[in-house]
């Protein structure tokens, strides 16, 4: 099977071998005199696991996954996808769901088909797959609705379904349920969990500790641009290693 075919088809689990493991080596990023990432080194692997990056506002969580996803270049250090530097072709295998979903000014269905067709898939196939994905996400009745007229929760569910439809090798989720109501949050968490259980590599960023308890298999605690702790979720919540982690769990302000 050729590389080109794989990239166009984006065949899910197989796609992960192009990008996983994702590693960051001594990633440092400074903007306007502020250190956003400070020598962060980590490796993300483990199919079916949900490594979850938590930390207070401004800790560098969103910046970190943008650097890992190849959206922002670090000032120093390097990112490796499956041992190689990120490139545009393999970026197709990296999914990203933003805190604020990016909805094109067209129908929900057209929002789903756009990235498929941009990756070379024929319209008929793209529409068939997109309809099935929207049905599966419980959004089949909104297929023809202009996406920007959907509620915030519906837009995020479309964004998640759209990202999954591309069958990425790894999926980054940047606070996907921030500001959403409980039912939308539950729907999105269920989809994330199912995708992870089906073998997708998921990296979640959240500020919601309850959500981290529900979904995380591993906790990556960020604070002031530094990676403080990378621990299996169970032990993190039961016996955090650092005083900062304990204070964060206790709901105290981290300075």
């Amino acid at each position, binding site marked *: 099977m050729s590389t080109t075919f794989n990239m166009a088809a984006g065949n899910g689990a197989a796609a992960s071998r192009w990008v996983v493991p994702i590693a960051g080596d001594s990633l440092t990023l400074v903007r306007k005199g502020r250190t956003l990432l400070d020598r962060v080194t980590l490796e993300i692997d483990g199919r079916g696991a949900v490594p979850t990056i938590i930390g207070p506002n401004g800790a560098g969580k969103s910046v970190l996954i*943008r650097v890992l*996803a*190849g*959206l922002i270049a670090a000032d120093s250090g390097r990112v490796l996808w499956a041992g190689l530097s990120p490139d*545009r*072709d393999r*970026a*197709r295998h*990296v*999914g*990203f769901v*933003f805190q604020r979903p*990016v909805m*094109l*000014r*067209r129908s929900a269905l057209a929002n789903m088909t*756009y*990235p498929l067709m*941009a*990756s070379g898939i024929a319209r008929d196939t793209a529409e068939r797959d997109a309809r099935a994905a929207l049905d599966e996400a419980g959004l089949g009745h909104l297929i023809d*609705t*202009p996406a*920007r*007229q*959907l*509620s*915030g929760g519906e*837009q995020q569910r479309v964004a998640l379904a759209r990202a999954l439809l*591309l069958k990425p090798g790894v999926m980054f989720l940047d606070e996907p349920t921030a500001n959403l109501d409980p039912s939308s949050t539950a729907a999105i968490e269920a989809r994330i969990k199912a995708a992870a259980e089906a073998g997708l590599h998921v990296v979640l960023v959240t500020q919601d500790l309850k959500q981290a308890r529900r979904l995380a298999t591993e906790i990556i605690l960020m604070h002031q641009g530094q990676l403080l702790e990378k621990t299996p979720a169970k032990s993190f919540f039961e016996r955090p290693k650092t005083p900062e982690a304990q204070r964060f769990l206790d709901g105290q302000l981290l300075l």
Partner: protein
Amino acid sequence: MSDVWRDAVALLLEFDGDLIEIVGLSLTVSLTAVGLSAAIAVPLGAFIATHQFYGRSAVILLVNTLMGLPPVLVGLVVYLWLSASGPLGSLQWLYTPAAMIVAQTILVAPILTSLTRQAVQDLDAEYDEQMRMWSVGPLARATTLIVEARAGLATAVLAGFGRAIAEVGAVLIVGGNINHVTRTMTTAIALETSKGELALAIALGIVLLVIAVAVNAAVMVASSRGEPEAGLRAP
């Protein structure tokens, strides 16, 4: 109602031949100029919006400045180009509708370029990360942004048309206001008023006003379709 107003209304209701001819020429010239401007300005505006290059700020400043070009100045420049001794004199376009189209195209293109750049640039900032995650190439990205900015572009085109149809200085200089050849609504109003023949001037003024209202109504519709609030789905 005074005689002048009664005559003006009569001209409108009778679809007076001269009046229809003048309105038809005005619309033809302005619509053609707007079409040509759009063909140049939309890709150009999208290019400026989506590319970083040396001198970009200067180009944006220049285009924004050209938005306020005085029509008589454009008329003068086009006149000099097209006059018998000018560089394009051999075309023999002076005092023809073609000359008026050239002048109006030059007037409208900066407006369309600037408004296109603004509309596309705003969207580009919003879509940037998502487009990069989808590995969308530069050409596909620019095309998508133009389609996505359609409401803003429609507003820009209508604004450009409004400027063209209401403009008098440039078309007067390069068209010459020749009866049955280059007489537009605005030049006819100026001439008829100066002659004291107010009925045709008023009738044309009413048509111009109706067009202005229609254009503004279209701008409102185009704008309102642009950006529905998230979460406000119609029942």
